């Protein structure tokens, strides 16, 4: 089978493996120079590209069950790259890269209108309500490959795009044009101690993420794996983040159903 030239980087998160430890969140913050405040308890004001939700089946003991659901940017493809956020940004400060399938955010072009935040049903887009203030000495520990963001702009998960650029540069120096699967991995995928997060090219049949999800590319990447699902599938956002579970209630928690209510 011919491999499509364009990549569609995506992620699959096994919710039955996730323990909710939060290592993915911490790794993401360290990798991407995510700002924090002395009191960061109000999660609607803080920035976290990777957020772990705690889901409950709502039943009493002994049927009570919980599930932790890590939520990075879903890197929606929409129709022809018109993801909910990309098409609304008035200043083209967010972009759908047809070569990688990654939804980017151009911090120096964003002027903070927040229309993309209103457009995103997953709440992955967050606003810098304050300028970042790093504890003394921490400036030296910041990742030099990732620009820090100023007050008044929106930011979100980039699938650790700086790692992609670094890996691609290295490959070019070595005379290659293709990246091996392990050459470009996100910080959260590498940090997960349970191995619940798998990252790779959904277009590449050799990549684990493709083999697990078995995406139906003719139908917006819908998973063929019966255990896999995407959040809010009905909206037609065509996310590239998939979730795996064997539990029916978890799967149903991923989308709205008319008959449910």
């Amino acid at each position, binding site marked *: 089978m011919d491999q499509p030239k364009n990549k569609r980087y995506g992620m699959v998160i096994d919710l039955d493996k996730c323990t909710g430890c939060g290592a993915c969140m911490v790794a993401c913050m360290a990798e991407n120079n995510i700002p924090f405040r002395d009191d960061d308890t109000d999660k609607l004001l803080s920035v976290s590209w990777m957020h772990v939700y705690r889901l409950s089946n709502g039943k009493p003991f002994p049927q009570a069950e919980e599930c932790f659901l890590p939520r990075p940017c879903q890197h929606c493809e929409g129709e022809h790259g018109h993801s909910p956020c990309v098409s609304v940004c008035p200043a083209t400060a967010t972009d759908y890269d047809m070569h990688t399938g990654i939804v980017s955010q151009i911090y120096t072009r964003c002027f903070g209108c927040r229309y993309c935040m*209103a457009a995103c049903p997953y709440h992955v887009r967050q606003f810098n*309500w304050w300028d970042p203030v790093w504890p003394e000495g921490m400036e030296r520990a910041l990742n030099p490959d990732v620009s820090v963001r100023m007050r008044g702009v929106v930011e979100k998960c980039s699938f650790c795009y700086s790692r992609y650029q670094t890996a691609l540069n290295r490959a070019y120096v070595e005379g290659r044009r293709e990246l091996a699967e392990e050459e470009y991995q996100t910080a959260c995928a590498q940090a997960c101690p349970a191995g619940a997060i798998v990252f790779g090219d959904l277009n590449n049949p050799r990549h684990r993420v493709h083999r697990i999800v078995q995406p139906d590319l003719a139908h917006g990447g819908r998973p063929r794996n019966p255990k896999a699902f995407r959040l809010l599938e009905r909206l037609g956002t065509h996310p590239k983040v998939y979730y795996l579970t064997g539990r029916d209630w978890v799967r149903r*928690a991923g989308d709205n159903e008319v008959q449910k209510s």
Partner: protein
Amino acid sequence: MDSALIPKGVERCPLGRFLAFIAIVGAVLLWGVVAMFLIYIKGLNQTNMNNAYGFALWIWADLAVIALGGGAFFTGLLRYIFGKAELKNIINYAVLIGFVCYSSALLILAIDVGQPLRAWFIFWHANVHSMLTEVAFCLTCYFGVLTIEYIPLILENRQIERISFFRHLAHNMHGIMAVFAATGAFLSFFHQGSLGGVSGVLYGRPFGFRSGIGIWPWTFFLYTWSAAACGPCFTILVTRITEMATRKKLVKDEVIDLLAKIAGWMLVTYIAAKIVDTVYWAAVTAPAMGFTLMDFYTNNPGSAYGLWILIAEVGLCGVLPALMLIAPSVRRNARLLFLAVLLAVLGACLNRWVMILQMQAVPVLPFERWFTYFPSWQEIATTILPVAYGIILIAFSYRYLPIFPQEAELNPLPEGGR
């Protein structure tokens, strides 16, 4: 003391009383200016917006004032394009109210962005797919048109008019005003519509999303239609309030009656279309996205967004004022007419409120809860700021410019008057 500036044949209150009034409203304005600078210096953390409520009071205020300022383009369209000559007696005031509304919207937008110094990026890096881009371009152009329409009024001030160049300029500008009225109607159609599209295109937000024709969701047309219906109602409302404040009749009843009648029929057709849109959205669009109508109106904190809000918008502030305004007996009754236009104005404001605020309050992810929001005092102050500015501009314009052509006739001065 300022009698030389006051238009001929009309009477104004003593300067001291006028300045006292301006000082009171000016204090409110100053409060808003303080809040504005606080926001510019410290940032949007001075608001109660958050990552779930990226759009809030300001965006609502923007959408509401632009809808209400729609009286300028629609009255201009009726006066200059459809030849409703009687409306020349209220067109000046409609233009002034429109100017106030649109300048207020631009002011609020300038406060609302996180990086105000980059606001020009919306023009420089314009994304043609974004409704906000269309809003920015059309709104800015139309504000230019409103300024051109307002300038001849300023030039008609008694002292400025004495300068031959300005007198002729005002005369000639009046002569070609039909061109600007047509341009204004064209631009308004698109930016009013684009504001409707702001929520209508959000296919990730089932409460706001609507199907439509081509790239335009139904809300595109509904917003334009509602602005054409409720904008003139706002013009009538402000005219009546001005008459109460000045204790004078400023516009003849037949002029108000004509505008109210047209607004009434516009409101009838709008609200019929709105009901069809709501039914289709509730029965087809939302269920396809996994939502029932009641998902949007139940289980929210304090029932702030209960079904009552839909009934209030469509019924109390939609159907009722529409039926009232098309009834001649209601239009002839000053109190009932006031109530009808007030309800219509509230209906437009409520529609913009739900399409912005409720759209974000509704949880889309099944494991999230309703989001709540109450504005900070800085947001409230900066939203009242343009109201104070508008009152001051209207007060100065009324005092020194011949805004109401029928005022002298309706309020003859006693013998020996100016």
